[in-house]
């Protein structure tokens, strides 16, 4: 699967919450894109992940 553009080795039974935990993501102020679904921090479901899934975990940064 892909997480933030990098390949990530999927494992049986992996869920979104587990993934975020594995990645040690500071979940405050992040938004997660799972396929076409977009979830804001605190509303991220513990969805099961498929090995073809594409995940984006983003936050707000400086910019002009």
């Amino acid at each position: 699967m892909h997480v933030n553009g990098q390949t990530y080795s999927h494992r049986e039974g992996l869920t979104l919450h587990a993934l975020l935990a594995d990645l040690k993501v500071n979940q405050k102020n992040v938004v997660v894109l799972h396929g076409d679904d977009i979830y804001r921090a605190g509303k991220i479901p513990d969805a099961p992940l498929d090995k073809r899934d594409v995940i984006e975990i983003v936050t707000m940064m400086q910019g002009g």
Partner: protein
Amino acid sequence: MTTTAFEPTAAPAATDDLTIGGRSFRSRLMVGTGKYKSFDVMRDAIAASGAEIVTVSIRRVEIGAPGHVGILDAIDFSGLQLLPNTAGCKTTEEAVRVARLARVMSETDWIKLEVIPDAKYLLPDPVETLRAAEILVGEGFIVLPYMPADPVLARRLAAIGCATVMPLASPIGSGRGILNRASLDIIIEEATVPVVVDAGLGVPSEAAASMEFGASAVLVNTAIAEAKDPVRMAAAFKKAVEAGRDAFIAGRMPVRAYASASSPIAGVVRMPEPEAPT
């Protein structure tokens, strides 16, 4: 204290408010949050600018960086209109996708649309920008498109429902000032939505000039963030934008090919003619 800064006390005539997407603003200076040395300087500079609309970007979090700090952890944007951008997107698809993420992230429908294929001059793609704008307007976004100073494109972007047009003065971050004056004049003359001069302004006088020739607002980032003293420069841009807008409303003097004396012509003390001998 920072909070109060976001509620300017001295209010100009409400009739001169800037209205975008149904919301009114007293400040006509929008600022970016990029390139600051520290969040403290950024915070003080935003306060000093008096800006009510502030741009941000959307980026992937750094994986495995638990202490990762996003801008929301550092800055209190309450009272400000956040304007997330799609900077870095090279295609319509990327820009639309980032806009959707930004909407959820920022809890606003406002989006500064940027579709920029080249990295050297960071110039927007007119065709992709129009395509992306059509999609986003259709999805209910309040779209502020960054665009080349192209009057025909400006008309088309306004026609499809963009909230503003944001033509560039010169390349992003170049500080080269207003290189497209003639095109900006036409865009402003024909405008049916607010015209925001975006990108390239390097000093306050260029922001003042933009307001004098009729821009509705300006957006400044690098010129403030990269100044030796960003906070003082932010205050300078605030004054300059107000000065330019005041001048636009006050109505400038005519330009003359020749001079026109400031002092009375009559009554000058001249040497007398020598007395004729009697």
